[in-house]
């Protein structure tokens, strides 16, 4: 089993296509949609985590490409401005998936990108406005 996080950009004409159906039925993948911005007639964007066989994921990516969808590996979308952060730790109190934690010992802020579901709770909570999410 493999797991990858994909950043999908849909051209306006494709923005209403039911890709979840194809990912599940045709490629036996388990998609987990983390973020999505879909408006009919406009360019859409989706952050999806897919789990399944490695070759199935590769085939699904090829399919998405044929459908005119731009596929990229999800980049680090959570940006922590260390110059602003005072390591108060409040973001760790609202991070349900446990992506933001404080290290034992030195209490440094640790971000585990794999656990982040891009819910923006930290963005809202941060009193220093040090966290931004690009997508």
């Amino acid at each position, binding site marked *: 089993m493999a797991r990858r996080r994909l950043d999908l950009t849909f051209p306006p004409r494709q923005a209403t296509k039911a890709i979840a159906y194809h990912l599940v039925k045709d490629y036996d993948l388990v998609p987990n949609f983390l973020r999505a911005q879909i408006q009919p007639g406009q360019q859409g964007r989706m952050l999806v985590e897919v789990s399944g066989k490695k070759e199935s994921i590769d085939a699904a990516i090829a399919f998405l490409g044929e459908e005119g969808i731009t596929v990229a590996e999800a980049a680090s979308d959570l940006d922590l401005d260390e110059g602003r952060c*005072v*390591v*108060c*730790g*409040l*973001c*760790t*109190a*609202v991070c*349900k998936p*446990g992506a933001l*934690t*404080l290290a034992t010992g*030195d*209490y*440094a802020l640790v971000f585990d990108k794999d656990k982040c579901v891009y819910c923006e*709770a930290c963005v*809202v*909570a941060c*009193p*220093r*406005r040090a966290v931004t999410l690009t997508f």
Partner: protein
Amino acid sequence: MAKSWEEINARIASGEAVVVTAEEFAEIAKADGVTAAARKVDVVTTGTFGPMCSSGVFLNFGHSDPPIKMGTITLNDVPASGGLAAVDTYLGVTEPSLTKGIEYGGAHVIEDLLAGKAVRLKATGPGTDCYPRTEIDTWVTLEELNQAYFFNPRNAYQNYAVAVNSSDRTVFTYLGPLLPRLGNATFCSAGALSPLLNDPTYRTIGVGTRCFVAGAPGYVAWEGTQHNPNQTRDDHGVPVAPAGTIAVIADLKAASPEFFSAATFTGYGVSSFVGIGVPIPVLDEEIAETLALTDADIQATIIDYGVATRSRPSFGRVTYAQLRSGEITIEGRKVPTGPISSLPKARRIAQVLKEWVGERRWTLAPPLQPLPQPGSQAFKPLEIRNEEAV
């Protein structure tokens, strides 16, 4: 075994004083015992870096030509008090901007001044014989101000509540967003490093005590507002809920942006992180006992902020060690925790203060006047009533 202030100061002056942080002292006491630790160590330094809403600065702008008696005053669109002499003002950290709301407030103006940025000053006045000007629009920098000093009416709270929310919706508080149905717990104290938790009955911290204020050398000016020495205390005499506070004064021009940071709490308002540290002399074993306490010994009370009343219900007490573990148990449920007071910054403050006392030879002085002691004064609420009921 007892050491006098004079003996400790003589050791500081000669460069022989043993100065350690409260965390280091606890380790020495654990290894060698409290008696040996008290004999060995002369001064213990403390530190805290949490949001402290009751903070602000007095500023004097100097006089323009012709002069103005400033009535309404804004700095970068943030209102400041016009209720003082012609060109004096007080800017409180929680004041929101007229144009940007709580995303920019008094604390952000102070942060910009500290960073050396020019700040736009606008004011209007009534126009009088001695102050004929009625309007001014100019730019000021920290360097050019005649005086600029912190006067923070309430800092370094001695302990604080642990905040949870039992309601069905997220509540936005000065302790951060509290998730519904006990979804999280936030807390705000440096625990074993916190100044007043290390001197729980205010034996050494009082009016005139030298302290670290936002990176500047400052003084305890008075008891802080809402100072409540009568709070419930544990077997060590340490309060288990918000108790004592101090008002502090220090030169803004000597402060550092490293130890003062503006804050915006979504759905609540503006505040500021203020770094405070106080050196505590190890006078005897009694004070050494409380200096040796660790986060495992200090408790805080869990309060339900989902209930918007003055007296909120409690879910009992937990220790700071439990809170720091990232999870506490409330009524059998595991609740994730997160701090609001920065422990890395608190540690840094205690280290800086260690250098000030040890290397810069900052001698200490007994309080000129003690803070109100346990049993000395009541903490009163505000009743809503009409004139006849007074």
